[in-house]
């Protein structure tokens, strides 16, 4: 999907850089190879972009201008409509097991505004700093995610866990990831990475963690999973 955006807007001066927040780089490879990207497609095993840009969920996008200034901080960034990504909205719920139907019913409430972000991006590419979507430096900082000591500590625990997992000590990573989840419950990238190792795909409740994707989604209300895009 981002390759399509790149094909459209690269001739007008936009480059796309995708960053996969996969602790195991190999998990991202098939998706990258299938997309045949012409743009840089990077791997961020330690979630450096969470720390440097305030990313807490995917997809999240950050705009950076020609001089290296951030003009929009991390926010939900859907690259347009994709029938594959939208298929969960149209599947016949009577054909799937009840627990899957429950999950899909909730997931359908997730707001994604697939047309909005790309329309904003087109406007910025055309009008540059005159685009109403390009924010001032003060506004960029103000709109970036708030960071308390607890949230910064969560980042440190996530990295400890990530390192131990990659060193072949997965069981030792879990206590650190539990701490990260406790300290920064709004960071879905920490939680989903961890849940996915225990229950790939479904990210269900296992003995390793106190919650699951579906449980936490219901807790906050699926309509709040992505904050609304603010022009």
């Amino acid at each position: 999907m981002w390759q399509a955006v790149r094909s459209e807007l690269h001739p007008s001066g936009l480059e796309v850089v995708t960053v996969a927040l996969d602790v195991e780089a190999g998990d991202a490879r098939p998706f990258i190879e299938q997309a045949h990207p012409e743009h840089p497609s990077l791997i961020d095993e330690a979630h450096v972009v969470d720390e440097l840009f305030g990313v807490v969920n995917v997809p999240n996008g950050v705009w950076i201008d020609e001089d290296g200034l951030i003009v929009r901080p991390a926010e939900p960034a859907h690259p347009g409509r994709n029938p594959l990504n939208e298929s969960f909205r149209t599947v016949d719920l009577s054909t799937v097991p009840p627990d899957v139907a429950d999950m899909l019913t909730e997931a359908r409430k997730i707001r994604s505004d697939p047309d909005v972000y790309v329309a904003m991006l087109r406007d910025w590419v055309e009008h540059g700093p005159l685009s109403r979507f390009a924010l001032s430096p003060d506004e960029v900082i103000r709109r970036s995610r708030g960071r308390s000591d607890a949230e910064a500590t969560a980042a440190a625990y996530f990295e400890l866990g990530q390192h131990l997992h990659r060193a072949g000590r997965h069981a030792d990573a879990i206590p650190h990831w539990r701490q990260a989840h406790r300290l920064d419950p709004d960071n879905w990238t920490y939680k989903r990475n961890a849940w996915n190792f225990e229950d790939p795909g479904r990210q269900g409740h296992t003995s390793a963690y106190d919650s699951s994707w579906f449980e936490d989604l219901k807790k906050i209300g699926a309509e709040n999973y992505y904050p609304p895009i603010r022009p």
Partner: protein
Amino acid sequence: MLLTELEADPTDFETRTGWTIKPEGACKADVCVPLPREARRPDGRLDMRIVAERLGMPVVRDADHDLWAVGPETAVTGRALTTAVAPDLVLPDVDGRPFRLSSLRGQKVVLVAWASW
């Protein structure tokens, strides 16, 4: 930032956190936080106890594996961004080749975080 002892090479520290060590202190773009003289050891390495405290970076420890991790700064804006100047992110592509974000200066960039999960 992961450490095996509470000291760090200034270049490694800059690469991972975006903070450059200058005579006036630790700087991110035009934001500088003064550091006491003892923050920099005679061998040029940083005393991370001092640097982390000044920047509001939490430090956590895994004693079993003799590891430390230093979280991002909280001291200046209390937000994820200390400045609107983009940090010079360096990450590998799927084949391990490093890519530097600043190599795209002169173009507009949309940086998109995603995941296979």
